[in-house]
């Protein structure tokens, strides 16, 4: 990590320490803190070059910010918006859209999981391009009902959709810290940006993996802190070897997951990161619940938020099983 990256990470962490209130945010109609989003954009965490009015951050810096947001589970449009910005940057001539994002517009991408045999839950978006009008339904679209810029793929092309032509509804899921939506397209006017590229999916998987690693790391830290202070049989829980070994295994998982996430930069390594980080975070969140005991089963304690986020994130952008299926069919395997 460069000194500049460390400074950026510290700035994001300090901002979230002071201003992130997950419980309050999920009770608001839009599900996130608008003032916090504005401050985050001001720090310059979006991967937009300076020529488009951005901070010049690269995806490495964006991923550091996503790790921080993962730690605190802060609901934020950063994940979807960062993916959309990177998707736009894979084409020429999207300066206007990129400038709007740099100024704080929320953006998202909905795509067909080309090359994946989907389960019923992941058959989105069922859109069919009819010249520059789209029909169909896109499901489980990240920030889909909030986005001011909506990019959608029919599996062949990527479009920017005129929001006047779509109806959108919030889709509540098990993870209240994540905003998903269903979008209906009925003769919706759309501008074709270019051919759909699978590298946009790789970009999304890598970004999500960074967030998963941050959340897994924090779930472990909270578990370590709790077991060091909770006393039973006259000793801290953390002094019992059976629990120490479980936390040691959690640490091994976090460290290897971080390596996989940071290395994700092509089709295979992004799929590896998605599967590995999803499974690592799921395991760590389950262990967090077990090692906290009864308190973890309460609404008041945050353990269930990590647990739900772990499950939701493992399903987002295709489940580990979907990606294992894809890997087995790829040239590598």
């Amino acid at each position, binding site marked *: 990590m460069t000194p500049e990256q460390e400074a950026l990470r510290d700035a994001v962490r300090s901002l979230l320490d002071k201003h992130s209130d997950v419980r309050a945010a999920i009770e608001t109609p839009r599900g996130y803190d608008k003032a916090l989003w504005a401050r985050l954009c001001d720090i310059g965490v979006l991967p937009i070059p300076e020529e488009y009015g951005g901070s010049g951050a690269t995806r490495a810096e964006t991923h550091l910010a996503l790790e921080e947001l993962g730690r605190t589970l802060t609901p934020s449009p950063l994940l979807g918006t960062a993916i959309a910005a990177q998707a736009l940057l894979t084409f020429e001539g999207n300066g206007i859209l990129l400038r709007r994002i740099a100024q704080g517009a929320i953006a998202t991408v909905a795509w067909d999981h080309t090359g994946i045999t989907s389960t019923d839950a992941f058959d989105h978006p069922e859109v069919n391009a009819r010249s520059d009008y789209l029909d169909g339904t896109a499901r489980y679209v990240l920030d889909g009902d909030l986005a001011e810029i909506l990019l959608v793929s029919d599996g062949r092309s990527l479009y920017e959709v005129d929001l006047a032509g779509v109806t959108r509804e919030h889709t509540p899921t098990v993870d209240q810290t994540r905003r998903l939506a269903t979008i209906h397209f009925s003769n919706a006017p759309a501008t074709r940006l270019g051919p759909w590229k699978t590298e946009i999916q790789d970009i999304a998987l890598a970004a999500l993996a960074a967030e998963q690693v941050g959340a897994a790391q924090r779930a472990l830290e909270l578990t370590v802190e709790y077991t060091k202070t909770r006393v039973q049989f006259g*000793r801290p829980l*953390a002094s019992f070897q059976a629990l120490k*070994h479980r936390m*040691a295994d959690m*640490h091994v998982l976090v460290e290897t997951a971080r*390596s996989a996430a940071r290395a994700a930069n092509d089709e295979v390594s992004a799929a590896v990161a998605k599967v590995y980080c999803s499974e690592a975070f799921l395991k760590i969140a389950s262990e967090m619940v077990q090692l906290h005991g009864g308190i973890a089963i309460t609404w008041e304690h945050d353990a269930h938020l990590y647990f739900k986020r772990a499950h939701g994130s493992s399903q987002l952008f295709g489940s580990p*099983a979907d990606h294992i299926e894809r890997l087995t069919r790829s040239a590598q395997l």
Partner: protein
Amino acid sequence: MDLTLDAATLEFRAEVRSWLTEHVRPLSSMDTAPGFEEHRTWERLLAAERLSVVSWPEEFGGRDLGLLQWLIFEEEYHAAGAPGRVSQNGIFLLAPTLFAHGTDEQRARILPPMARGDEVWAQAWSEPEAGSDLASLRSTAVRTDGGWLLRGQKTWSSRAAFADRAFGLFRTSPEGRHRGLTYLMFDLRASGVTVRPIAQLDGEPGFAEIFLDDVFVPDRDVIGDVGDGWRVAMSTAGNERGLSLRSPGRFVAAAARLVELYRKNPDPALRDRVVDAWIGAQAYRLHTFGALGNPPTGPAASVTKVFWSELDVSVHETALDLLGEVAPGWRDGWLFSLAGPIYAGTNEIQRNVIAERILGLPR
């Protein structure tokens, strides 16, 4: 993380690949007398090409290459199915200790014959009453004119049945558990040494007991200061647990073989386990490449040790489940993988290290 290799590294990879393709052939088990000598000859062949210890300085037989090139060498070595390294205790465990704590005289005298396979080293850590609790060891080194006299018993000593020399810890003072230990090297053929081979679970003597009865060791064969052996030894332990001994090349190659096996014996019920093992090997590789600038030593090495040893077991168990029987080509690797979570400090000890020294959990 950028895994793009420069032209010189790619050229090195090509050179290693082509040399191995031309020279690798199956050898007998290194845990038999004739197989041991075949492996020694193989080490000499590697050394003649300066390929036995590529990361060492040229004066000791290496090529002065970096850790990245060593990892590339290892990937090619394992992908080619090249023989196990009979020299590994010396080149991966003793040599790093000599680089860190030895004298110029020791390095000049010991490293070149080690690199050529002329002197093969065994390790002598464990004792019948000192396994996981290594610091409770009882073998002693008693001061004598010009050196030390070793007394006691070592066990689980890998390669000792046929090796030339050994290194280990001995108690030079009864005071303190860790403070009274000294790191010494000795000749396995010296007067007073009795080596009793122990058959491993494959039936061959991969390790041995060593009985020491007033074995003379000159002062020049003490590494580091007298009484400072524990600290010196722990730097070796970090190498054994970390990436030196178990580079990702071994697991990436084994996982690739597993995928190949699945192609020939597809069993949908086992498919996820095959992919998980492959993903695990990739994750370990990425972890290692990511740590290049800051190689895991000390407690961080315990993280990698737990990971690679359990990955190795799962790759081999999945292969056996695919085959439905203990098949040639996988049996030896499977049996060897069972030792991984035990040697170099059991994984239970590693988990204690991670819990107490990284996570700060109370003892």
